[in-house]
């Protein structure tokens, strides 16, 4: 009897230390439609941190990190070098399955929130995004980090990679919200929105949701058509061209 009680006690202790906190999240929109006059939009992430009754209240405040990752891409990054006075693409590095979009919002700089190991394993922060190099490529081996750095910089120039270390706002101690900017020219596809809750450097809870970014209306039609039916799309472009040319000739012949 005492043995069962002991086990029950241990079990309750384990569960309370591992799953005391949980986070519930909601997005202001689960779909972003890119129309022809799309100039960017904003998605609000709401979150509520919950504690079961048995948890002791904590002295330290919660830290929140929200990460939005775009659909993964295989990318080749090239570097120009001067050869006989002309700038030519020379070395390159191919990366597999890296995010096409990355936005991080947190209530304070991630380096203050947790140790670098915890940030690295969860790919929190632009520097902690993993860049797997394609091994079967013919590219010369060597340092890939300058190419990864260049990719980050090029993406950041278009607001497609960003970090906002004051981007999470607490409504009260357990309720927070965060505005994620979706800039124009975002890649389409399935996005992942992740929320991490830390206290004093320890990851307490994690949740994620899917966000769909797709072209909408006429844009969607044209885009899908051009990707899936290239031949027909080309024929359509030709017919359109012939029509415009013919019509233009007709209009001006009258004058």
């Amino acid at each position, binding site marked *: 009897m005492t043995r069962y009680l002991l086990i029950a006690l241990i079990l309750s202790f384990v569960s309370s230390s591992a799953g005391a906190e949980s986070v519930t999240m909601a997005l202001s929109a689960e779909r972003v439609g890119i129309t022809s006059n799309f100039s960017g939009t904003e998605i609000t992430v709401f979150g509520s941190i919950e504690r079961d009754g048995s948890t002791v209240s904590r002295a330290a405040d919660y830290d929140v990190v929200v990460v939005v990752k775009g659909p993964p*891409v295989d990318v080749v*990054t090239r570097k120009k070098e001067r050869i006989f006075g002309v700038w030519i693409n020379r070395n390159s590095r191919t990366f597999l399955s890296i995010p096409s979009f990355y936005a991080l919002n947190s209530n304070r700089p991630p380096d203050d929130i947790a140790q670098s190991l915890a940030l690295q394993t969860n790919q929190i922060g632009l520097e902690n995004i993993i860049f797997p190099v394609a091994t079967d490529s013919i590219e010369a081996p060597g340092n890939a980090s300058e190419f990864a750095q260049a990719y980050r910089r090029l993406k950041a120039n278009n607001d497609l990679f960003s970090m906002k270390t004051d981007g999470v706002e607490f409504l009260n101690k357990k309720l927070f919200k965060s505005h994620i900017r979706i800039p124009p020219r975002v890649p389409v596809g399935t996005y992942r929105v992740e929320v991490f809750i830390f206290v004093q450097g320890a990851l307490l809870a994690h949740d994620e949701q899917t966000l769909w970014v797709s072209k909408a209306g006429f844009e969607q039609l044209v885009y899908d058509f051009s990707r899936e039916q290239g031949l027909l799309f080309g024929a359509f472009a030709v017919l359109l061209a012939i029509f415009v040319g013919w019509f233009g000739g007709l209009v001006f012949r009258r004058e």
Partner: protein
Amino acid sequence: MLLGMGAAVGFISGLFGVGGGFLLTPLLIFTGIPPAVAVATVTSQTVASSTSGALSYWRKQAIDLKLASMLIAGGIVGSSLGVFVFRLLRDVGQLDLIISVSYLTFLSSIGILMLRESIRAMINSREGNRPPARMPGQHSWVLGLPMKMKFRRSKLYVSVMPVLGLGISIGFMGSVLGIGGGFIMVPALIYLLRVPTSIVIGTSLIYILVTMSVATVLHASTNQTVDVVLALCLMIGGVFGAQFGAQLGQKLRGEQLRALLGLLVLAVGMRFAVNLVLKPEELYSFSVLRLMIGSGG
């Protein structure tokens, strides 16, 4: 903005009586549109700008259909080859470079030729000389090659080899660089094959229309770089601009016009040179090989 650009180039093409692709493509590239998209899109625009011209020559029956079909046969081969090479260059990341270098050599040599010729003509007309008459009846060796064929409409009996060769090479250039090639085709037909001037323009327009149509379909299906919205803007702008350009063009004198065009072409060529030689602000670039739309990051 794009409508304006189409109109400006259409204006120039109407003014000088050229297709305009060789100016429109560079212009698009300079405004930051990726060369691959610029080339493929202008290819479709070229179809629009050659249609109305081709139609009016068709009505006047100023076209040698047999000659045109031989040129087109070559053109289809050439442009298929061109689109294939285009794809290859894009995959190894050297497409932009090849486009720039080709435009540079090509525009500067043509610009210089035009300038020299027009300045000579201006000097001649000032001194009251008549331009030296071309020697008639002098046949080039290329026409004597085997596989002779009769082109009744053009009153020609020449080897098909130079005809096919011309079709192939201009089709190739057209699909790689996004130019119709009328401004090479016309002089080549006149001076090389000695096709009567009255038939040359219509025949060359039909050739451009068909070859560039094929190139557009191929670009769309293999490279997916035809931007139809951009193309439509350029087409509409081009069609309207060309009309006003043609009206003004009739008021200006030929030599001055050609000197002006020569300068313009040379300037665009030089711009490519500057871009190649100057240290770029950003040494790195990336291109997406595969976008995994379905699976979340």
